[in-house]
């Protein structure tokens, strides 16, 4: 009984759609949406595109040195990440090299993160937690340089910018296995 009733309603609806083709109709799920999105301007896209790809796409103009990063780190980061990135109360940023396959792995920027671009991306969008997006691009480059330096990944005279940062080879670059299609 129920099935018959259901079929009857569907048939009626189809007839209705056919009869009123030039008027408003009930849309089926396969037809496109109402197209209510408006075109995004280039300025809007630029303002909101804060993601940085591993190859460096999206990195802004500007630069910062390890030495400049010392001051930025002391002012904006040390209260949570400790002196020289040793951690507490927030995550440690240094150490752990060579520990990943041991019984007590220590995962930090230096020992675990595969791309230096991720450090710039994350610091700029989310740090410090009390005032995200408050650092200038120069400050983000500088503190990125500093954190890479205290991990022994870049030299003390290193300068990070849109060209140099993607060139940094992180120690654990090859430590990840892509499971997206497994």
């Amino acid at each position, binding site marked *: 009984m129920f099935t018959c009733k259901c079929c009857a309603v569907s048939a009626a609806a189809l007839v209705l759609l056919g009869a009123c083709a030039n008027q408003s109709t009930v849309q089926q799920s396969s037809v496109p*949406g*109402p197209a*209510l999105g408006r075109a995004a301007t280039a300025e809007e896209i630029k303002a909101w595109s804060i993601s940085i790809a591993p190859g460096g796409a999206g990195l802004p103009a500007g630069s910062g040195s390890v030495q400049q990063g010392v001051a930025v780190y002391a002012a904006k980061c040390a209260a949570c990440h400790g002196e020289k990135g040793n951690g507490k109360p*927030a995550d440690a940023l240094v150490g752990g090299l060579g520990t990943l396959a041991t019984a007590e792995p220590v995962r930090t920027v230096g020992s675990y*993160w595969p791309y230096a671009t991720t450090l710039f991306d994350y610091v700029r969008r989310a740090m410090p937690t009390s005032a995200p997006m408050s650092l200038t691009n120069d400050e983000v480059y500088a503190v990125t340089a500093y954190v890479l330096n205290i991990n022994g990944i870049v030299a003390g005279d290193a300068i990070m910018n849109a060209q140099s940062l993607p060139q940094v080879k992180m120690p654990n670059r090859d430590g*990840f296995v892509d499971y997206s299609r497994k």
Partner: protein
Amino acid sequence: MKTRKLPAPAGDPSDRRNFLKHGIVSAGAVAVGAATAKAHAADPIGKDFPAFSVTPGAPFRGYGQPSRHEEKVLRALTPGYGAIAPGTGSSRTPLQTLNGALTPSGLHFERHHNGVPDIDPAQHKLLIHGLVKKPLVFTEAALLRYPMVSRTAFVECAGNSGANTLPAAPQANCGAIHGLLSGSEWTGVSLSLLLDEAGVEPGAKWFLAEGADSAAMSRSMLLDKAYDDAIVALYQNGERIRPEQGYPMRLLVPGYQGNLNVKWLRRLELTEGPTHTKDETSKYSMLMRDGKARQFMFELGVKSVITRPSGGLGMPGAGLYEISGLAWSGAGRIVKAEVSIDGGTSWREAVLQAPVLSKALTRFRLPWQWNGSPAMLQSRATDEKGNVQPARAEWTAQYSAANRYHNNMIQTWAVKADGSISNVYL
């Protein structure tokens, strides 16, 4: 005194047949009638009706709340960083006090990376750009006019049950251990519909989803998911999504790591490859014993947990209890939930409460005649793809001792003769 028949599990008519098929798990027949009668005599129906029956009740209110007698049913709060970031951490669904397969919206678990933003929907926008022919901006008002679909789905944090990967079994209740798990009906716009309007370029294989919270939490995933079952959700359990769950809109990717269901969704960027954000490299990646890490392991494994009886809930004396819990899988429907009362030596199939939906919480039930002896309660789920929930040893053999993610190993609750229940590793 009347002899009462053992109650059949509640639910649809097929449950009755299932009950007869599955029977009662029993550790020995025990007469419990005398104890029950004694309890009744101590709490008789009085001569007068209680005050609440003979005085007018409360008037109407615009939004209902639970009974004040349920005020202790709360999420367990586990802020991760204290005063330096009070909005960073999680709260957990009190699974041990709930029943059914849906979670009240106000008890849905939370995981925030820098607090809950107070978003004015009139100011919120969703930008779709990257490898699309026509980058688009959608307002909330525009999206509310779109055709919608509903999906009943679980959301589980990839770090759920992480405490059970620690060296010693934590003594906490079911929600505190496993409550980064909730189930809701989500309603919104098919992501594929919006992407089709923007026009996907042939080179697009991934997309990045970003939130409008002050952590701007962002994750990459394969574009395939957008054309499978992903939606931009605007409603949860019939009402607009609550701020803690992503108001005014969140991404819903059924069966995937909770973290991928990006809340407060403001931006979708179609890309050729993954962006390798912080939350898909340093976090939410699974460190293995060999030091390598599994990355972009989106789908959550088949899993179950007995929510009652469970850790911290006492059992007041021998008698009939219902063993009840939840089973779920990121791969699809649950086809079987088994229960053991002897730590996995023998198993009995539990009744699955209908409807059993793909990538949704499924309630299972099994009556248990407890004779008062110590017992080891376990549950084990199987999904429609044939995946079986792993034993503790099987799970731990794969992962680094430091890995806390994707823990879907079998949970053991140890029942002592005095009715107390604790969390044990077996």
